[in-house]
Each structure stands twice: as structure tokens, then as C-alpha cells.
């Protein structure tokens, strides 16, 4: 039965293999001690390079979604918590809409920017209906801005009004999940197309 399987058919029995696999352990095995001494004895000491392996630990790797697995590693840390991996990256979870347009606004810098320059420079600002009055540049707002989540998007603030009259629908390239190099390439290609 075993001889019909593909890998067993490929294993051609060799004379040397048969002897080494079934030999009793009383003969010197080359794995744990020095090599077998041939009949014409030559005892020059030769340097046998041995494996020089570093110390290894077992580590529990916990992915961002809570699942774990163990690995062998040189790191002495017992538990490694991964913050960003394929389980919460948009490239590997394309159907997960919560990963799109994730804005990590640490220290409130983005909110401050929006307060001063408006939402015109947002990546996903929808182009409003193109009107000539909206071509004025947005003014600096001196009064304190409303919180980011409750801001009413004023159509006259968006700079995309300027170009919406000239731009076609497909101009807006989807830049999610692409590296800076790929984004630049895409822009260049779309520019060429024009």
C-alpha cells in the first residue's frame, strides 16, 4: 500500500541508505561522536565546523485580533503583542470597511489644522457643486472651531470646487492601501492620461 504513494515511489532504495537506517546502534553513529575511522588509519586532527547556534526561547505571538501562536526566537520576551499585522491591515482585509480612512489624530494636530484651514485639504472631501462664488480661497478662522466630528462641511470652503468644473468623475484616484511610491506612480499615470 505504501509503495503506491508518490513520495514512496520516488524514494529509490540505496545501499548506503539501507545500511545506515537499519544498523544497530552499537556501531558509531556519525551524529553524536567523531567520524568513523577507516582501515588505513590517519589521525590528523581536522577541523570539523560545528553548528554555532544562538540561544533560542519559545515566544507567544499575539496578533492584533487576539489570536496567538508560539514561535522559536532569540528574543527573551515571553509574549509579543503585535499592533499592526495582516489581521488589521486593509490590504489583507479589503472587505473590512472600518479600516478604510483611518485617521489617527494624536495630539489633536489634525483637528487644529482643520480649524485653521478648513476641510478643503481632506483626502476624502467630496467635490461640491461647482459655483463661481466658491472660487474664493478659504479664510483663516480665528474663532475656536467646533469639534471635528460635529463640523458641518461648508461647501464654499472646499477648494475642490475650483477644479470640479474641469475635472471628470474618475479623476479621484483611490489611494488607500498604497505606499508613497505607488501613490506617486498612480498620480503620474493619471497626469499622463490627461
Amino acid at each position, binding site marked *: 500500500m505504501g*509503495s*503506491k504513494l508518490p513520495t514512496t*515511489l520516488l524514494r*529509490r532504495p540505496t545501499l548506503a541508505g539501507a545500511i545506515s537506517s537499519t544498523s544497530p546502534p552499537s556501531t558509531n553513529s556519525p551524529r553524536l561522536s567523531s567520524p568513523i575511522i577507516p582501515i588505513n588509519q590517519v589521525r590528523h586532527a581536522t577541523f570539523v565546523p560545528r*553548528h*554555532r*547556534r*544562538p*540561544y*533560542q*526561547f*519559545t*515566544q*507567544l505571538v*499575539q496578533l492584533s485580533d*487576539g*489570536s*496567538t*501562536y*508560539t514561535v522559536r526566537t532569540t*528574543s*527573551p*520576551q*515571553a*509574549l509579543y503583542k503585535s499592533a499592526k499585522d495582516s489581521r488589521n491591515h486593509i490590504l489583507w482585509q479589503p*472587505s473590512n470597511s472600518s479600516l478604510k480612512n483611518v485617521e489617527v489624530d494624536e495630539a489633536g494636530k489634525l483637528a487644529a489644522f482643520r480649524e485653521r484651514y478648513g476641510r478643503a485639504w481632506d483626502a476624502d472631501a467630496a467635490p461640491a457643486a461647482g459655483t463661481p462664488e466658491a472660487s474664493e480661497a478659504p479664510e483663516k478662522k480665528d474663532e475656536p472651531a467646533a469639534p471635528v466630528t460635529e463640523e458641518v462641511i461648508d461647501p464654499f470652503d472646499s477648494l475642490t470646487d475650483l477644479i470640479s468644473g474641469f475635472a471628470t468623475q474618475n479623476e479621484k484616484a483611490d489611494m488607500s492601501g498604497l505606499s508613497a511610491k505607488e501613490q506617486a506612480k498612480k498620480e503620474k499615470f493619471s497626469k499622463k492620461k490627461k
Partner: protein
Amino acid sequence: MLSAPSRGAALLRSSQRVCLQCARTSTTITRAAPLAAGRRYFASAEAVATPPPSSQTPPTQQQTRTKTATSPQQSQSPAYRIKSGIILTRPPLLTREQTPFESAFYLYQKRLNERLTAPFRKDFYFKKDTASDLDWKIKLKERHGVPAKDIGRYNPRGRMAWNDEVLTGSTTSSPENVLEALLADAEARVSEDGEIMAPEERVPVERPVPRKTEADEKNDVRRLDRALDRTLYLVVKREVEVGGKKEAIWGFPTGLVHTEEGLHETTARVLAEAAGVNMNTWIVGRVPVAHQIVQPIEKGEKPEESKEKLFYLEYLKEQADLKARGVKSEQVEERGEKIFYLKGRIMAGQADLKGNKHGYTDFQWLTQEELKEVLPEKTFKSVRNMFDLR
């Protein structure tokens, strides 16, 4: 594309040629069987009414039936209805359990490794007199000087270096103990200021979720997070009336192949119609993975004796149709069915049978062994060869 005759010839030639090595070991390799009656190596253009010899009823019976067909249109129509089914599977999400031999072997190898690798250099990883350095020192002392956490107490140097094997009955190797040791080590013993934390102050580490989920405990067969280390298969139920009483028959979702469709298109349509669209699925290519031939109901045969034939609603619909038109039962052309199953994978979502046109009333996600109990015998035998290891 090769023409039909040349393709068949090439197949014949290759089947008779073997390499020298295989020719030497000819006892194990079976010769290519001579052409069975009616089997050709090419598909001819003309429609063939006789079924292939591999079917379950003897050929003579079939031939007599086709001969006695009355109307000329019926004699030209093929003897089998063609259907396409979907075997939707959820692949295992977890690795299989470690066997006791595996765990013991891994511990043995780790102990040998302890004897053969370079010693651990703490100074490379921990800077002197930092909080993490103090933390490491405390834990190392508790482990009696062993840097590794999962091998128990063993010193590869000194007079007891020979004693690297654990005694029988030792629990050092079990995966649960290894996990506990790693989680205990992951706890911080020294705060960021360098103060040694008392047992009450220590923050416990987030434990991994257990392998047996809630669905396992309740044995909820409609949920997809049950039996995470096994493959789950979707089966649907149809309730059929047999002689006044209702019987439930389980099977895979199937549907008739329309004239302009390919098998894969039918399968996609059947899946959407039967189980809804709120599932992230992928049908693996276009090639069928299993097939089932359902023989037509014989003249004298009672439907109750062939339960799985009742699963296929088309047959009953056709019978009802013909009866309504007033065609007598003796004149009815009873066709069998050929069902070709395609494999599908589900990655997210859940099946929803609401408003399905095939009359399915319930669904379950079952493992291989549970399928054997639930499916009719002939259906199970048709699909069991496409099952995976687990």
C-alpha cells in the same frame, strides 16, 4: 485546441508508456484497463442516450426503457437532468491539537538544544540597572538560573548535565503548562520606576481565548465558530411529504443548470438564491469536485424507499406538472439526475435561508463525522472522497 480524435490518441499513447524505473517495479503499477464497452476517449458531437456503464442500474434495464419511449420528442431528450450543487466549506481556523508524543518530543529537543547552543547573553538584551533588567533577574532566580521558560529545571553545565531527560508522568511538556509558564513570565514584576511590585500590584496578562468556544459548549450547529480546528460543511434541509407524513431530508444546495449557463455560473446562482448574499464566499474554479447520479424512480418503485430522490424538487414538480396536463403516469418519461458538486469556501458572514426559492427550511454547519449521520447514504458516498484530513 487539439481536435477530438488527436486528443484521444495522445491519451492512449501516454497510458502505455512508462519510464524505466516504473517498468522495473511493475508489480505495484496496474496496467491501463482496456477500453470498457461504450467508453471512448473523446467526446463525440452526437447526443448519447445510453448512460455510461459506471451507473448503478444494469445497462439492459435502461435500454429497454428508452426503447419503449412513446413520443419521438421524448426519445431524443437525454435520460438525465443536469444539476449543479455547492459544497460550501469553512476551512479550519486553528491548528490541530498536539499529540502527547509530539509535546514530549518537543521538550526532549528543547533540552538537547539547551546543551548544544551558545549561552544566553543577558547584556545584549537588557541594559544594566534598567527596570527590565531587574525584572529579568527576578524571574531568572525563580527559574533557578534557566533562561528558557518551558523546559523546567535543567542545567546543561556541571555535574548534573547528564540528567536531561524528564521522568515518565512528567507534565513539563504539556502545551497547557508551556502556555502557563509563558504567561507567567509575561507579567511585569518591576514597575517602570524600578520598584519591585507586590503580588497585588501585578497586572495579569490578557489570556488567550480558549480553543473551545461557546458554540462548542452549547453544540450550536448553526454557528460557524464551532469546531474551529475542523472543516465545516453547509447542508440544507427540505421537508417532503411521503405518504401523508413529513420527512426531513438533508443535502447540499443544488439547482438545475440552465441551457446557457456553465456549471460554475449555476453554482453561484444557486448559492445566492439558497443561502443569501451576506457571505464572503469564493467558488474554487470551475471544475466539479464530486458527482452523484440519481436514478429515476422505477415504475413499481415507491418513493419512500428512495428518500434522496425526493430531495430533488424538480422531479416532483415535473410529476405534478405532467399530472396537471393530464399525461398518464405510464407515459411519463422519468428522468434521472446527474449532480455535479463544486467546492466553495466561506470567509465571513452567515447563511440566510429567508425567501429562498428552493424550498429549504433549515441549514447546519457540520463536520465530516456528523455529515455521515445526517446525509442520506448515497449522497454521502458520492461526496466523501472530496473531504479533507480534518
